[in-house]
């Protein structure tokens, strides 16, 4: 699904990601853990196509296509989804028309028929109720005046609707209390299946109690210093990042 080889990325001429490689296969969930400033968010932002990040060298293949040849929206339509650490507020952009535009953009790019209005409403209501998102919240502007927890639940709602092949969850657990964490995890697990892949980026092992990873990688100073299975996260929790520096 996603193959990154020897990737180095710089921000303002400073190298943040250094010779990073990963191979995420269909159906796999990889957790990337790392201390502050290790390059976790740089990686997710760079992969989504955000401005301000420069490729130094390396290759990124997504569904056998060169991801770096595509712009932000082309990557998304190909099936990449980034759940933002800090979702952007869009006052005046109503949630429902926004979601419909997003879904239809994807359908159109695959030469498929646009979604039926009734079917869409049914679908969105079902997902919203699963994620404890009220009807009132669906009437608001995108992320506007949402609480931290509401924003994260709303990211998962979008992810569920858009049904991506690869989801990158950038510190989706940050700022969540335990109840919200459970709802968000439940939402992620619902989307997870054998045909899609996920990369979960987090500081803490806590999230991985609810979203069980197939692989865990420890990122320090832009490099993977150790990879393993879910037990690595437990080891990390005990020993702290210092033992991996």
């Amino acid at each position, binding site marked *: 699904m996603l193959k990154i080889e020897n990737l180095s990325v710089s921000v303002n001429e400073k190298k943040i990601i250094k010779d990073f490689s990963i191979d995420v296969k269909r159906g796999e969930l990889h957790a990337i853990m790392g201390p502050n400033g290790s390059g976790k968010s740089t990686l997710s932002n760079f992969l989504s196509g955000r401005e301000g990040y420069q490729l130094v060298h390396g290759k990124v293949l997504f569904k056998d296509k060169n991801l770096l040849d595509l712009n932000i929206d082309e990557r998304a339509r190909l099936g990449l989804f980034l759940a933002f650490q800090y*979702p952007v507020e869009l006052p005046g*952009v109503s949630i429902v028309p926004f979601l419909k535009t*997003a879904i239809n953009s994807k359908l159109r790019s695959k030469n498929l028929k646009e979604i039926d209005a009734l079917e869409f409403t049914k679908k969105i209501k079902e997902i919203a109720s699963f994620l404890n998102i009220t009807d009132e919240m669906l009437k608001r502007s995108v992320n506007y005046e949402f609480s931290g927890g509401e924003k994260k639940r709303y990211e998962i709602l979008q992810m569920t609707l858009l049904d991506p092949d690869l989801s990158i969850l950038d510190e989706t657990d940050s700022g969540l209390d335990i109840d919200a964490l459970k709802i968000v995890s439940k939402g992620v697990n619902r989307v997870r299946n054998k045909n899609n892949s996920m990369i979960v980026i987090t500081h803490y092992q806590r999230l991985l109690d609810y979203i069980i990873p197939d692989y865990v990688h420890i990122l320090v100073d832009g490099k993977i210093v150790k990879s393993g299975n879910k037990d690595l996260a437990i080891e990390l929790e005990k020993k702290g990042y210092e033992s991996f520096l």
Partner: protein
Amino acid sequence: MPEIEKLYNQNKKHLIGSEIPWLKEMRNNILKELESTGIPSKKKETWKYSDLKHVRNVKYVFDESGIKNERKDYFGDVNFINGKHISEIQEDHIKNIFIEKLESNIINFEKYFSINSNFLSQDFITDLNTIFLTDGLTLSVPNNVKTDLKITYSNNLNSISSYIRNIIKVGKNSEFQLIENFNKDNTEDNSSNVFNIFWLEEGAKVEHILIQNAQQSSKIAYSSLIFCYDNSDFEQFSFQCGSESVKNQHTTNLIGRRSSVKHYGVYFAKDAQFVDNKTTVIHHEQECKSNQIYKGVLSDESNGVYLSNTLVKPEAQKTEGYQLSRGMLLSEKSVLKTKPELKIYADDVKCSHGSTVGEIDREQLYYLQSRGINKKESEKLLIKAFTKDVLENMKNKESLNRIDEIIDDWLTE
């Protein structure tokens, strides 16, 4: 200046009210005044930021040949073609509103003509309107009714200049919705100068919607002068999209206690278009509220100007006055000049003003694109979102939908 006087002398006999002594005198006084001050230039504060196209090449064309039997689908309840009201009748009742032609009894309207010399003194645009008046109506909404009226302004000849004045009285506790449309037609080089005076009696509520979507080569100057008595509310939505140059000025006098006014505006301009809006609120009495909120989107080499003014007189205690101007520039060559002014002579008031000019927010654009929406569509969503909070206050949903369609067309052109 001599050109204006020459034009006046050439066309005197066609002008409305040419035989009425007080109007003749008023016109002569304006011409005399113009002779001493000259036509406005950028040196004059009120014209400093404005488009001087409205000053140069002032025209008066007398041609009534296009007026006969005009009918088009978009026509309103009341229609002006080439500066003339198309109905032959002198007076009529439409939707409970008593309508009279200004021409038929202009003799009774001296006070409505002298009024602008008190409130819009030496104003070139309304002075031209007084001199070259081509037509106008008086609309009287009786007490305690709820009604609405649509007025359209259009042309079917090229190079026409219209000078129209309407006097609109809204009776006690009545609710009145007035929609004015400057329509797109297939003509060239037309200019309109419309001046409307509104009187709101006690408890009257007016929603005034002004849609200026005329063709590219047109010039529009629109002035409104509003008087609000006790407990009356005037709510105005001014929308511009199209026209080579638009110059609007709206002046509200809150002369009754607990009266309120909202001047809302949304404007779009592209190419080399020029949109110039000015709103003024004068708080004469206590416990009145005013809101002046304008948002503009400018592209290509277009120019926008928005000046807002609040004047709080010493008697006007417990005033609440709010001003906001926001601009979105879509190109490096587009320019917005905006200036809020507050003059407060009372001590117990709440007043504020804000003004920002910016571009499309890159973070917002990135977020939308990351959901698979292409850049162009994402920009459209953000541009519409920018004006939404102003437009969604509009109660007349038909007009709101029409404006929405005009914006969609503007965004896809």
